[in-house]
């Protein structure tokens, strides 16, 4: 079976069909915003239907501009909008509506090794996010 590469946009109908049937879908994410948990090319996520929103979990959502984002849910705001942030980022992205959320990460595969969303490793990078964000803000600008 050869490697099959496609954009999320192209895979979206199939992905939604699989998730809607109660199944799981594997995705290899791009970018660095979720480092060190997710490294482009080597790590992948197993997605399930986003039944409920839980702080600390990672979700796939779609921005108004069409971009697909895989980030951690930091806060469920009083107005029921969602605030996300990549583990490797300092900026909180606010105002996301539930309808924009397409999937929830059930587990991460680092290489072929499973990291469950309830495990310490998975949640540890999230817990250290404020510290990393503080360092980012206080970096000398040289």
């Amino acid at each position, binding site marked *: *079976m*050869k490697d*099959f590469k*496609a954009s999320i946009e*192209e*895979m979206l*109908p*199939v992905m939604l*069909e*699989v998730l809607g*049937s*109660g*199944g*799981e*879908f*594997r995705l290899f994410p791009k970018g660095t915003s979720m480092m060190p948990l997710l490294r482009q090319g080597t790590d992948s996520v*197993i997605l399930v239907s986003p039944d409920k929103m839980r702080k600390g979990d990672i979700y796939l959502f779609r921005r108004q501009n069409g971009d697909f984002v895989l980030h951690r849910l930091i806060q469920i705001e009083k107005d029921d909008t969602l605030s996300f942030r990549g583990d490797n980022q300092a900026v909180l992205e606010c105002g996301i509506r539930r309808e924009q959320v397409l999937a929830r990460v059930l587990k991460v595969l680092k290489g072929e090794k499973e990291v469950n969303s309830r495990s310490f490793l998975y949640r540890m990078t999230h817990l250290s996010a404020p510290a990393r964000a503080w360092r980012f803000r206080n970096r000398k600008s040289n």
Partner: protein
Amino acid sequence: MIRNKSFIKRKIGTQYVIVAIGEAAKRFHGMISVNGTGSFIWDQLERDMSVDDLVRALVEAYDIDAETARADMGDFLTNLREVGAVEGF
């Protein structure tokens, strides 16, 4: 042999793939990309077909000889069987 109803053929871009849904999609997370012949074989397996039935169908559709047909579909059927997409070997 016949295909498992928990596996479906869909098009992604210009490529046909076979993917699992429901409970089967909790065990098999991959997508099997198929070419024209594979797609044809998959369509045939909607009904219970023996290997000979498949060979006959391929020979007729693609104007090739039985030897070539048998050789071409061997690996593909093995892959399908390994992931549970086809039953009743």
